[in-house]
Protein backbone atom coordinates (compact mmCIF):
# COMPACT_ATOMS: atom_id res chain seq x y z
CA UNK A 1 0.00 0.00 0.00
CA UNK A 2 2.89 2.25 0.78
CA UNK A 3 4.78 1.19 -2.29
CA UNK A 4 4.12 4.24 -4.48
CA UNK A 5 5.10 6.55 -1.67
CA UNK A 6 8.23 4.51 -0.92
CA UNK A 7 9.28 4.42 -4.53
CA UNK A 8 8.69 8.15 -4.79
CA UNK A 9 10.80 8.73 -1.70
CA UNK A 10 13.55 6.49 -3.05
CA UNK A 11 13.48 8.31 -6.35
CA UNK A 12 13.71 11.63 -4.54
CA UNK A 13 16.67 10.40 -2.55
CA UNK A 14 18.36 9.12 -5.67
CA UNK A 15 17.75 12.43 -7.34
CA UNK A 16 19.25 14.32 -4.39
CA UNK A 17 22.30 12.05 -4.34
CA UNK A 18 22.76 12.48 -8.07
CA UNK A 19 22.54 16.27 -7.75
CA UNK A 20 25.00 16.22 -4.93
CA UNK A 21 27.54 14.15 -6.83
CA UNK A 22 27.19 16.41 -9.88
CA UNK A 23 27.81 19.51 -7.79
CA UNK A 24 30.76 17.88 -6.08
CA UNK A 25 32.25 16.89 -9.43
CA UNK A 26 31.84 20.43 -10.76
CA UNK A 27 33.67 21.80 -7.72
CA UNK A 28 36.56 19.40 -8.29
CA UNK A 29 36.93 20.39 -11.92
CA UNK A 30 38.04 23.98 -11.36
CA UNK A 31 40.85 25.18 -13.60
CA UNK A 32 44.31 26.03 -12.36
CA UNK A 33 43.90 29.80 -12.68
CA UNK A 34 40.78 29.74 -10.52
CA UNK A 35 42.44 27.53 -7.94
CA UNK A 36 45.40 29.88 -7.86
CA UNK A 37 43.12 32.84 -7.26
CA UNK A 38 41.36 30.94 -4.50
CA UNK A 39 44.70 30.17 -2.94
CA UNK A 40 45.74 33.83 -3.05
CA UNK A 41 42.41 34.86 -1.56
CA UNK A 42 42.85 32.35 1.25
CA UNK A 43 46.39 33.44 1.99
CA UNK A 44 45.36 37.10 1.98
CA UNK A 45 42.56 36.35 4.42
CA UNK A 46 44.89 34.39 6.68
CA UNK A 47 47.45 37.18 6.59
CA UNK A 48 45.12 39.07 8.90
CA UNK A 49 46.23 36.64 11.57
CA UNK A 50 49.83 37.93 11.46
CA UNK A 51 50.88 38.53 15.04
CA UNK A 52 50.11 42.11 15.84
CA UNK A 53 52.41 44.25 17.97
CA UNK A 54 51.83 43.05 21.46
CA UNK A 55 50.09 45.57 23.59
CA UNK A 56 51.13 45.71 27.23
CA UNK A 57 48.59 44.33 29.60
CA UNK A 58 46.32 46.95 31.22
CA UNK A 59 47.88 46.23 34.61
CA UNK A 60 51.37 46.78 33.22
CA UNK A 61 50.22 49.96 31.49
CA UNK A 62 48.80 51.37 34.72
CA UNK A 63 51.94 50.37 36.56
CA UNK A 64 54.06 52.22 33.97
CA UNK A 65 51.89 55.30 34.21
CA UNK A 66 52.12 55.20 37.99
CA UNK A 67 55.90 54.95 37.82
CA UNK A 68 56.12 57.94 35.49
CA UNK A 69 53.79 59.98 37.71
CA UNK A 70 55.80 59.06 40.80
CA UNK A 71 59.03 60.04 39.04
CA UNK A 72 57.59 63.39 38.03
CA UNK A 73 56.32 64.01 41.53
CA UNK A 74 59.77 63.23 42.95
CA UNK A 75 61.49 65.60 40.52
CA UNK A 76 59.05 68.38 41.30
CA UNK A 77 59.37 67.80 45.01
CA UNK A 78 63.17 67.89 44.88
CA UNK A 79 63.13 70.94 42.63
CA UNK A 80 60.72 72.88 44.80
CA UNK A 81 62.16 71.78 48.15
CA UNK A 82 64.75 74.69 48.52
CA UNK A 83 61.99 77.22 47.94
CA UNK A 84 59.78 75.41 50.35
CA UNK A 85 62.53 75.25 52.97
CA UNK A 86 63.58 78.87 52.51
CA UNK A 87 61.20 80.08 55.15
CA UNK A 88 62.57 77.54 57.63
CA UNK A 89 66.17 78.46 56.85
CA UNK A 90 65.78 82.25 57.30
CA UNK A 91 66.83 83.44 60.74
CA UNK A 92 63.95 84.04 63.02
CA UNK A 93 63.15 87.72 63.62
CA UNK A 94 64.78 89.04 66.76
CA UNK A 95 62.67 89.51 69.74
CA UNK A 96 61.91 93.05 70.89
CA UNK A 97 61.81 94.39 67.39
CA UNK A 98 65.59 95.03 67.30
CA UNK A 99 66.58 94.98 63.71
CA UNK A 100 70.04 93.61 63.11
CA UNK A 101 72.63 96.29 62.51
CA UNK A 102 73.68 96.59 58.94
CA UNK A 103 77.46 96.38 58.92
CA UNK A 104 79.26 97.72 55.91
CA UNK A 105 82.00 95.36 54.80
CA UNK A 106 85.29 96.93 55.86
CA UNK A 107 87.59 94.12 54.96
CA UNK A 108 87.55 91.23 52.55
CA UNK A 109 86.85 87.74 53.76
CA UNK A 110 89.67 85.28 54.29
CA UNK A 111 89.75 84.04 50.76
CA UNK A 112 90.08 87.56 49.44
CA UNK A 113 93.96 87.68 49.21
CA UNK A 114 93.93 84.63 47.00
CA UNK A 115 91.23 86.21 44.95
CA UNK A 116 93.35 89.40 44.58
CA UNK A 117 96.31 87.32 43.66
CA UNK A 118 94.32 85.56 40.99
CA UNK A 119 92.86 88.80 39.71
CA UNK A 120 96.27 90.46 39.41
CA UNK A 121 97.88 89.52 36.09
CA UNK A 122 101.42 89.89 37.51
CA UNK A 123 100.71 87.69 40.49
CA UNK A 124 99.15 85.20 38.16
CA UNK A 125 102.40 85.15 36.20
CA UNK A 126 104.25 84.42 39.41
CA UNK A 127 101.99 81.52 40.08
CA UNK A 128 103.01 80.00 36.81
CA UNK A 129 106.68 80.22 37.83
CA UNK A 130 106.59 77.70 40.64
CA UNK A 131 110.35 77.57 41.09
CA UNK A 132 110.51 81.28 41.74
CA UNK A 133 107.63 80.97 44.17
CA UNK A 134 109.44 78.23 46.09
CA UNK A 135 112.70 80.30 46.15
CA UNK A 136 110.80 83.31 47.47
CA UNK A 137 109.33 81.23 50.27
CA UNK A 138 112.77 79.88 51.14
CA UNK A 139 114.23 83.39 51.25
CA UNK A 140 111.45 84.58 53.53
CA UNK A 141 112.24 81.65 55.82
CA UNK A 142 115.89 82.68 55.99
CA UNK A 143 115.00 86.28 56.78
CA UNK A 144 112.60 85.17 59.51
Amino acid sequence: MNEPRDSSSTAAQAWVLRSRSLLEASAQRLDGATLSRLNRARQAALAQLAPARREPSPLLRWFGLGAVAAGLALVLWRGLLPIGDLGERLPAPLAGGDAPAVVAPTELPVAAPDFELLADPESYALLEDLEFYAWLQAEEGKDG
Partner: protein
Amino acid sequence: MRTHILLSPPAEMPLDADASQSSLRQALDRFLRDVERRALRVAQLSCGSRDDALELVQEAMFGFVRGYSGKPAEQWPLLFWRVLDSRLTDFQRRRRVRSRWLAWLGPRQEEDDEDPMSRVPDPAEPGPLARLADDEAMRALEAALRALPLRQRQAFLLRVWEGLDVAQTAAAMALSEGSVKTHLFRALQRLRAQLEAP
Protein backbone atom coordinates in the same frame (compact mmCIF):
# COMPACT_ATOMS: atom_id res chain seq x y z
CA MET B 1 26.84 17.84 8.33
CA ARG B 2 29.71 17.30 5.94
CA THR B 3 32.77 15.93 7.69
CA HIS B 4 35.44 18.59 7.47
CA ILE B 5 39.13 17.87 7.73
CA LEU B 6 39.54 20.74 10.10
CA LEU B 7 40.28 20.02 13.69
CA SER B 8 40.73 22.25 16.66
CA PRO B 9 44.32 22.94 17.61
CA PRO B 10 45.53 19.81 19.41
CA ALA B 11 45.24 19.93 23.15
CA GLU B 12 48.88 18.98 23.63
CA MET B 13 50.08 22.05 21.76
CA PRO B 14 52.16 24.34 23.93
CA LEU B 15 50.32 27.34 25.21
CA ASP B 16 52.91 29.65 23.76
CA ALA B 17 51.13 32.46 21.88
CA ASP B 18 53.15 32.10 18.67
CA ALA B 19 52.69 28.33 18.54
CA SER B 20 48.99 28.67 19.19
CA GLN B 21 48.74 31.35 16.49
CA SER B 22 50.53 29.10 14.03
CA SER B 23 48.30 26.17 14.92
CA LEU B 24 45.19 28.31 14.47
CA ARG B 25 46.45 29.49 11.10
CA GLN B 26 47.03 25.92 9.95
CA ALA B 27 43.58 24.83 11.08
CA LEU B 28 41.95 27.78 9.34
CA ASP B 29 43.96 27.11 6.20
CA ARG B 30 42.75 23.50 6.15
CA PHE B 31 39.17 24.56 6.71
CA LEU B 32 39.18 27.23 4.01
CA ARG B 33 40.98 24.95 1.57
CA ASP B 34 38.30 22.34 2.16
CA VAL B 35 35.37 24.69 1.69
CA GLU B 36 36.62 27.16 -0.93
CA ARG B 37 35.70 25.21 -4.06
CA ARG B 38 32.15 24.59 -2.97
CA ALA B 39 31.89 28.19 -1.82
CA LEU B 40 33.00 29.36 -5.25
CA ARG B 41 30.45 27.18 -7.02
CA VAL B 42 27.68 28.33 -4.69
CA ALA B 43 28.64 31.96 -5.26
CA GLN B 44 28.87 31.43 -8.99
CA LEU B 45 25.43 29.89 -9.11
CA SER B 46 24.09 33.03 -7.50
CA CYS B 47 25.98 35.75 -9.32
CA GLY B 48 26.69 34.11 -12.67
CA SER B 49 30.19 35.48 -13.16
CA ARG B 50 33.26 33.63 -11.94
CA ASP B 51 35.13 36.88 -11.24
CA ASP B 52 32.29 38.18 -9.10
CA ALA B 53 32.10 34.80 -7.38
CA LEU B 54 35.82 34.85 -6.61
CA GLU B 55 35.51 38.33 -5.20
CA LEU B 56 32.59 37.29 -3.02
CA VAL B 57 34.40 34.23 -1.74
CA GLN B 58 37.46 36.34 -0.94
CA GLU B 59 35.28 38.83 0.94
CA ALA B 60 33.66 35.97 2.81
CA MET B 61 37.07 34.54 3.73
CA PHE B 62 38.21 37.94 4.98
CA GLY B 63 35.04 38.48 6.96
CA PHE B 64 35.14 35.00 8.40
CA VAL B 65 38.80 35.16 9.47
CA ARG B 66 38.42 38.67 10.87
CA GLY B 67 35.21 37.99 12.74
CA TYR B 68 35.07 34.34 13.64
CA SER B 69 38.52 32.76 13.61
CA GLY B 70 38.49 32.87 17.40
CA LYS B 71 35.34 30.75 17.59
CA PRO B 72 35.50 26.98 18.17
CA ALA B 73 36.38 25.09 14.99
CA GLU B 74 33.14 23.12 15.16
CA GLN B 75 31.26 26.32 14.46
CA TRP B 76 33.41 27.42 11.53
CA PRO B 77 31.40 25.80 8.70
CA LEU B 78 28.17 27.36 9.88
CA LEU B 79 29.79 30.76 10.41
CA PHE B 80 31.57 30.71 7.09
CA TRP B 81 28.34 29.94 5.21
CA ARG B 82 26.62 32.63 7.22
CA VAL B 83 29.17 35.19 6.04
CA LEU B 84 29.01 34.04 2.43
CA ASP B 85 25.22 34.01 2.46
CA SER B 86 25.24 37.56 3.75
CA ARG B 87 27.63 38.64 0.96
CA LEU B 88 25.43 36.93 -1.64
CA THR B 89 22.35 38.68 -0.33
CA ASP B 90 24.16 42.04 -0.49
CA PHE B 91 25.36 41.28 -3.99
CA GLN B 92 21.87 40.42 -5.14
CA ARG B 93 20.50 43.60 -3.57
CA ARG B 94 23.15 45.75 -5.28
CA ARG B 95 22.45 44.08 -8.59
CA ARG B 96 18.72 44.69 -8.24
CA VAL B 97 19.31 48.38 -7.51
CA ARG B 98 21.73 48.62 -10.42
CA SER B 99 19.37 46.98 -12.87
CA ARG B 100 16.60 49.30 -11.68
CA TRP B 101 18.82 52.31 -12.42
CA LEU B 102 19.84 50.90 -15.78
CA ALA B 103 16.21 50.32 -16.70
CA TRP B 104 15.45 53.92 -15.73
CA LEU B 105 18.38 55.35 -17.66
CA GLY B 106 17.28 53.70 -20.86
CA PRO B 107 18.02 50.81 -23.13
CA ARG B 108 21.43 52.07 -24.30
CA GLN B 109 23.14 51.12 -21.03
CA GLU B 110 21.37 47.80 -20.99
CA GLU B 111 23.29 46.72 -24.04
CA ASP B 112 26.32 46.07 -21.84
CA ASP B 113 24.32 44.16 -19.29
CA GLU B 114 23.94 40.41 -19.29
CA ASP B 115 21.23 39.10 -21.54
CA PRO B 116 18.39 38.09 -19.21
CA MET B 117 17.52 35.26 -21.56
CA SER B 118 20.83 33.62 -20.79
CA ARG B 119 19.59 33.07 -17.26
CA VAL B 120 16.44 31.28 -18.33
CA PRO B 121 16.90 27.54 -18.44
CA ASP B 122 16.75 26.02 -21.86
CA PRO B 123 13.37 24.30 -22.15
CA ALA B 124 14.80 21.79 -24.59
CA GLU B 125 17.56 20.83 -22.19
CA PRO B 126 15.82 19.17 -19.29
CA GLY B 127 15.20 15.50 -19.37
CA PRO B 128 15.43 12.84 -16.75
CA LEU B 129 18.56 13.84 -14.90
CA ALA B 130 19.70 10.30 -14.41
CA ARG B 131 19.74 9.65 -18.12
CA LEU B 132 21.98 12.55 -18.99
CA ALA B 133 25.72 12.41 -19.23
CA ASP B 134 27.47 14.17 -16.38
CA ASP B 135 28.36 17.35 -18.25
CA GLU B 136 24.91 17.76 -19.68
CA ALA B 137 23.32 16.89 -16.35
CA MET B 138 25.46 19.47 -14.59
CA ARG B 139 24.57 22.11 -17.13
CA ALA B 140 20.90 21.35 -16.67
CA LEU B 141 21.19 21.35 -12.90
CA GLU B 142 23.19 24.58 -12.95
CA ALA B 143 20.64 26.30 -15.17
CA ALA B 144 17.82 25.11 -12.96
CA LEU B 145 19.61 26.22 -9.81
CA ARG B 146 20.30 29.65 -11.28
CA ALA B 147 16.66 30.05 -12.12
CA LEU B 148 15.70 29.57 -8.47
CA PRO B 149 15.25 32.53 -6.14
CA LEU B 150 18.31 33.12 -3.94
CA ARG B 151 16.73 31.82 -0.72
CA GLN B 152 15.51 28.62 -2.33
CA ARG B 153 18.86 28.01 -4.00
CA GLN B 154 20.79 28.64 -0.78
CA ALA B 155 18.51 26.38 1.22
CA PHE B 156 18.98 23.62 -1.35
CA LEU B 157 22.77 23.99 -1.59
CA LEU B 158 23.41 24.24 2.13
CA ARG B 159 21.06 21.42 3.01
CA VAL B 160 21.69 19.02 0.13
CA TRP B 161 25.26 19.75 -0.89
CA GLU B 162 26.90 21.14 2.23
CA GLY B 163 24.99 18.72 4.43
CA LEU B 164 23.89 21.19 7.09
CA ASP B 165 20.78 20.14 8.99
CA VAL B 166 17.67 22.32 9.05
CA ALA B 167 18.66 24.19 12.20
CA GLN B 168 22.16 24.86 10.90
CA THR B 169 20.84 25.95 7.51
CA ALA B 170 18.44 28.29 9.29
CA ALA B 171 21.30 29.76 11.32
CA ALA B 172 23.50 30.13 8.24
CA MET B 173 20.72 31.91 6.36
CA ALA B 174 19.45 33.91 9.36
CA LEU B 175 15.96 32.46 8.85
CA SER B 176 13.58 30.41 10.94
CA GLU B 177 13.63 26.65 10.55
CA GLY B 178 10.10 26.80 9.15
CA SER B 179 11.20 29.21 6.41
CA VAL B 180 14.12 26.96 5.53
CA LYS B 181 11.78 23.97 5.19
CA THR B 182 9.46 25.96 2.96
CA HIS B 183 12.32 27.23 0.76
CA LEU B 184 13.79 23.75 0.54
CA PHE B 185 10.48 22.14 -0.32
CA ARG B 186 9.81 24.65 -3.10
CA ALA B 187 13.36 24.35 -4.42
CA LEU B 188 13.15 20.56 -4.63
CA GLN B 189 9.74 20.73 -6.23
CA ARG B 190 10.86 23.18 -8.91
CA LEU B 191 14.16 21.46 -9.59
CA ARG B 192 12.65 18.04 -9.95
CA ALA B 193 9.79 19.31 -12.03
CA GLN B 194 12.24 21.01 -14.33
CA LEU B 195 14.92 18.34 -14.50
CA GLU B 196 12.84 15.21 -14.42
CA ALA B 197 10.16 16.28 -16.82
CA PRO B 198 9.79 13.62 -19.50
